[in-house]
């Protein structure tokens, strides 16, 4: 699904992402962890062709993301509020995104009614523009717009960060369902080690732009990660 070759991004002399080789196969659920500044978001942006790589390339389904657009048809992503059109109401935004995928309003409405649990009555028909929603609710809109696109590949940057515990659990089961039952390849970053080891079958650990660990999740993964992040703790 995703193949990264010799990828490098340098900001003012400092290499912030350096991934010589990485392959993510179709149907995998991959978690990306690392401290602030490890290069997670930069890696996401490189994968989405939002920034120019110094060297190397990212292939999605054997197509270089830079200079091609086919991958956008089956890739859904939400990195931050910058992905949302904040002066629209959530409904308008969903219709817009649905329209890009040739979905009628009725289809979008139908799909959204299936997410009413996830929205918890906070999103639809509230008479607010997206910019007036709280950060957590904006995140819900972003994630829902991703799901609406019926993606084959889903990229989420810290989706658990701002949402309430109930929604976190709902999101986890949504993601598991997408991956297990619909075969969606997921790539998610998070600072919550519990969630990420729960949702993902493979964990990539980044430090200073480099993927230093690539582990298949098992019962000891959480301990291993906690040992890494709990540097110097007794």
């Amino acid at each position, binding site marked *: 699904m995703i193949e990264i070759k010799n990828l490098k991004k340098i900001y003012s002399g400092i290499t912030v992402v350096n991934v010589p080789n990485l392959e993510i196969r179709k149907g995998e659920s991959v978690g990306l962890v690392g401290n602030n500044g490890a290069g997670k978001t930069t890696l996401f*942006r490189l994968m*989405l*062709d*939002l*920034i*120019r790589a110094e060297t190397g390339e990212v292939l999605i389904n054997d197509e270089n993301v830079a*200079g091609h*657009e086919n991958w*956008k*048809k089956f*890739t859904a*992503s939400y*990195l*931050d*509020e*910058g*992905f*949302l*059109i*904040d*002066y*629209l*109401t959530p*409904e*308008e935004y969903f*219709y*817009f*995104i649905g*329209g*890009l995928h040739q979905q009628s309003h009725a289809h979008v409405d139908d799909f959204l009614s299936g997410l009413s649990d996830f929205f918890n009555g906070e999103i639809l028909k509230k*008479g*607010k*523009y997206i910019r*007036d929603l709280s950060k957590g609710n904006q995140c819900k809109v972003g994630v829902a717009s991703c799901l609406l696109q019926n993606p084959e590949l889903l990229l989420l940057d810290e989706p658990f960060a701002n949402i309430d515990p109930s929604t976190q659990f709902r999101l986890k089961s949504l993601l598991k369902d997408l991956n297990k039952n619909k075969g969606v390849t997921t790539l998610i970053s998070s600072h919550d080690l519990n969630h990420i080891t729960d949702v993902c079958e493979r964990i990539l650990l980044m430090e200073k732009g480099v993927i230093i660990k690539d582990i298949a999740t098992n019962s000891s993964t959480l301990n291993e990660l906690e040992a890494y992040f709990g540097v110097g703790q007794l």
Partner: protein
Amino acid sequence: MTSTFIRHELKAFWRSKNTGKSIAIRVVMSLVILYLFINLFFLGFFLDKILEKVFKGEDLVMSFCGIILLYYLADLFTRLQLQELPTLRVQPYLQLPIRRNLLVRYLSFTAILSVFNLWPFILFVPFITKIIATDSGPMVSLAFIVALAGLTLFNNYLALFIKRKSNLNGWIFLIAAGVIALIALSDFYWHIFSIRKISYLFFGHLISQPALALLPVLLGALMYYFNFLYLKQNLYLEELSSRKATSYKSSTEFPLLNSFGSVGDLAGNEIKLIIRNKRSRSALIMGLFFLFYGLLFYGKPGPAGSEGFKVFVGMFMTGIFIINYGQFMFSWQASHFDGLLVSGISFTDFLKGKYLLFTIISTCFLFLTTPYIYFGWRTLLIHFIMYLWNIGVNTTMVLFFANRNYKRIDLSKGAAFNWEGVSGNQWILSLPLMVTPFIIYGPFALLGHANIGLAVLALTGIGFILTRGFWIKQLTADFYSKRYKIAEGFRNK
């Protein structure tokens, strides 16, 4: 503590995005402000001559006294629209162990630091020193200045109070504006009372009784205290923030645009962008004001009424939105540009949406200029030709420069004196926009073949409209080579 506040304030000013990061923008900004002040100063300096002309045969001092209150009424109205609330800045201090009185006093005090409070002095003090000081002596002129200060304070705090109130309830603003309009109407239209007479009643007496100057000062002080109390009791985030109380926001659709498919969706979204955000809305409203531009020139004797000016004015009136809004493209969408890039919208559609938007709005503006038929059919014909020029040539030109614009702008700020997003781009862009039609039309007009000049303009416009597909292709290729730079610039808050 207060000195710390002031130091923070200075930092906030110099580090704010509106101040402009580059030296060039700062220089231009100070030049523009200086220019405005010099204009105002000249107006003040020659106020005696102007008053002599306007109120022929009246006593100079009397007419001066008469206009002061009128000025303050207009001042209040302008303040209501333009003066910014100096309030959100205290937010980071609210939870710290700092006494409320100190905060509120600081807030009230900084409210004085507004350019609005300089205007009356620049405007009136020259007159006071020139005429009143020589006529009635220094004591009286001092009294005048003190009275001016009092009234300025009063207006300052009254405007802020109304603005704060109207943040909580939008009707308050309308009521206040209505009251001001009512006062103006009952003076100039219904002649119930005369503000000039009232103004003279007070300022006329000031000449014989300088002590009366304390009256406006008292009013100002009262208003200050009133404001102080109000702020102290309402030092809460909702009241402080400049955000309007939110009403229910309903989803809207433009059925007409649906027939254009996803291009129509994009144009529809952009129309929502324009209407729902402060800065873009003011760009549109400024454009509407430009519709009166023709009244300044048309039908006037001399070159101002000539056809060359109609070409110029016609271009502005039908295309002001393209110029005013287009010069900041695609910065308007900076906050969600990443989302657009990954969404799978092809840039071709994106550009088609822009063309559609410009065409729709320019067409509206063209219709709004139809009353100018009063100045003859030919005027309307010129407008139409310039409309073709605008949606043909100018749109393409604006979009070409949009590919070179890397500055993010915050849509929630007003447009007046807002320098965010301004770069060399806008200055360079304005040159070809204004000059090109004249390079084409000018030579023909000078040689006495104005009609041919107009025809060439029209044909060029139509030519560009017919070849849009070609231009879109060029612009798309151009965009792909610059998209990383644009997106990165837009990410820089």
